């Protein structure tokens, strides 16, 4: 397992343990976020949700779907 930090804008920061090689898409499902509605920064860079996670990664989840 590797430890990562997840910051969803508007929520408290969480430290989570995930299997090495877990993708951001899988992580989003775990934290209850729909990939269609968020933009993700991995260690400060906007990335595609198929990027894989490694020890110490910081993931920022920015909800961007505001319409209604």
């Amino acid at each position, binding site marked *: 397992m590797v430890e990562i930090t997840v910051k969803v804008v508007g929520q408290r920061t969480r430290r989570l343990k995930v299997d090495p090689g877990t993708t951001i898409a899988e992580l989003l499902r775990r934290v209850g976020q729909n990939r269609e509605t968020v933009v993700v920064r991995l260690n400060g860079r906007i*990335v595609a949700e198929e*990027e894989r996670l490694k020890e110490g990664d910081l993931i920022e989840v920015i*909800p961007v*779907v505001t319409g209604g």
Partner: protein
Amino acid sequence: MLRCSFCGRRAVYHRRYAGVFLCDRCLIKSVERRFRRAINENKLILPGERVAVAVSGGKDSVACMHLLHDYCRGKRCELVAITIDEGIKGYRDESLPIARENAEMLGVEHHVVSFREAFGATLDEMVKVAAQRSTGLNPCTYCGVLRRSLLNQAARELGADRLATGHNLDDETQAIMLNYIRADLSRLYRLGPGYSPRQGFVPRIKPLREIPEKEVALFALLKGIKVHLAVCPYASGIHMEVRDFLNSLESNHPNSKFMILRMFDEIKPHLEAAVPGFEARGCESCGEPTSSTLCKSCELLQGLGLMRRRKNLIFVEPS
């Protein structure tokens, strides 16, 4: 590291409905290309026209203003921005300065029209009165009808040939589904890239209609454009349920939103015969164009004990 399917640079986005990865540059270029294509294929703007853009400060409308600014420069078109201040505390007062800042930065003439000046009350105040009077109408009904009416009047007074809004693919598919659910054929028929109703209405255009909401957000973030990302405090009900349903569908079945849009565009030409036409006349209370004696805005305002106050919304300082 995932790479862009087109140039090999670091990918920032997986466009699953097309099976490609995009880097920042290719995503920005793709959004710009789709925007121009929507305008050109549907003849949404003609060279030399004066275009009004509705700008709330949110990502869609601000991105739309930036894209229109570039487009208009090349087509000898004039661009003017209109912001409607509905009076939503903690929301519109935060987004309005962002709209103004972007317009100033681009050098776009910007006008703010408020519910308070036009109708004598803010949306927050209207919502309270509606609850006291048990009108049974939700805030979005008041906001949507009154905002559209002010936008049209302001655009007309500014001499605009077109009124552009930042509606994206998500907004359009939500509207299609909502009108199906409500069995509202007239409203369904009005959807599309452009709508040119009767005299007195400025033709409305939606140049972001074929761009998913997430891609509009990425465009704004990657270009470093300042936008307001908050959700309206009044957003609730069936709109949200339809939005969540469509996002869940898209997540499990990429391309669903585009398929809904394509199917609607196929059906639309056949709807004309089923939708009754109407003769536009002036509302007996405010004079704005309507199909009945009283326009929808005045009907809603009367239910709240209010009326349209200002006859002219736009005042231009004499130079």
